[in-house]
């Protein structure tokens, strides 16, 4: 199932050196591995454990998540606009699969 993340940049066009704010929300259960089902068996952990943001392939921000990050993880951060290109956000699941979202930024 392809999950589509919701990504919002506070500006699509920025001047070189400007700070661009990124807000992103992705639908994911973030199962903590602490809960038990009706039979009393532990529900196995399944979370997005890694997040990266790259602009034209260059990493500008990254994060590691633990089970203490809430379901449907929200992340907000900023980066410095250097060049026009693709802002790519990648979340990595415990099972190795990834969720990828992309936005374009124009730097003048």
């Amino acid at each position: 199932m392809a999950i589509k993340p919701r990504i919002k940049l506070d500006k699509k066009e920025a001047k070189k050196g400007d700070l661009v704010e990124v807000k992103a929300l992705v639908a994911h259960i973030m199962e903590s591995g602490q809960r038990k089902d009706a039979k009393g068996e532990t529900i196995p952990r399944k979370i997005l454990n890694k997040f990266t943001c790259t602009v034209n392939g260059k990493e500008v921000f990254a994060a590691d998540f633990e089970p203490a990050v809430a379901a449907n993880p929200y992340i907000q951060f900023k980066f410095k606009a250097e060049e026009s290109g693709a802002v790519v956000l990648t979340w990595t699941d415990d099972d190795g699969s990834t969720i990828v979202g992309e936005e374009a930024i124009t730097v003048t």
Partner: protein
Amino acid sequence: MCLAARERFGKEIEDMRFNRRQAMAIGIGGLAGASLLGVSGPALADKKEADEAIAKFTGGKTPIMGKVKLELPEIAENGNTVPIAITVESPMTAASHVTEVLVLADGNPRPGVASFRFSPASGVAEASTRIRLAATQNIVAIAKMNDGSVFMDSKQVKVTIGGCGG
């Protein structure tokens, strides 16, 4: 198990132990005493685990209070989703910038919450997300600079309903 639930459970055992002591042999009372220790054990382990995680992150250095600003609500009605924002004062140049920020919650079943990695390309060391908190506890954010110095901030959050979905 929630910390709150654990505390409740602990109290019940204490009551039980008291009753048993009156009715039964001391040997059984002692056994209940041992299980009481077993119940309070994990909570202590969390604190120790948190300290270990801090020591591992800082490389043994003691973090200095300051530079880091942790924004959290004073009271979280729902521990399942608590907004958290971190700001670290830094020029974020190649010569002086924040490399990593570690967030820990010492009252959760596991203390680790998240870590954020910054670089001069970030422009500013700022991030926010939403986290789960099992009970009223202290949240700690520790920032590591590129020169190896460490700074921290800590804040207590009162949690009305724990967010471990027990």
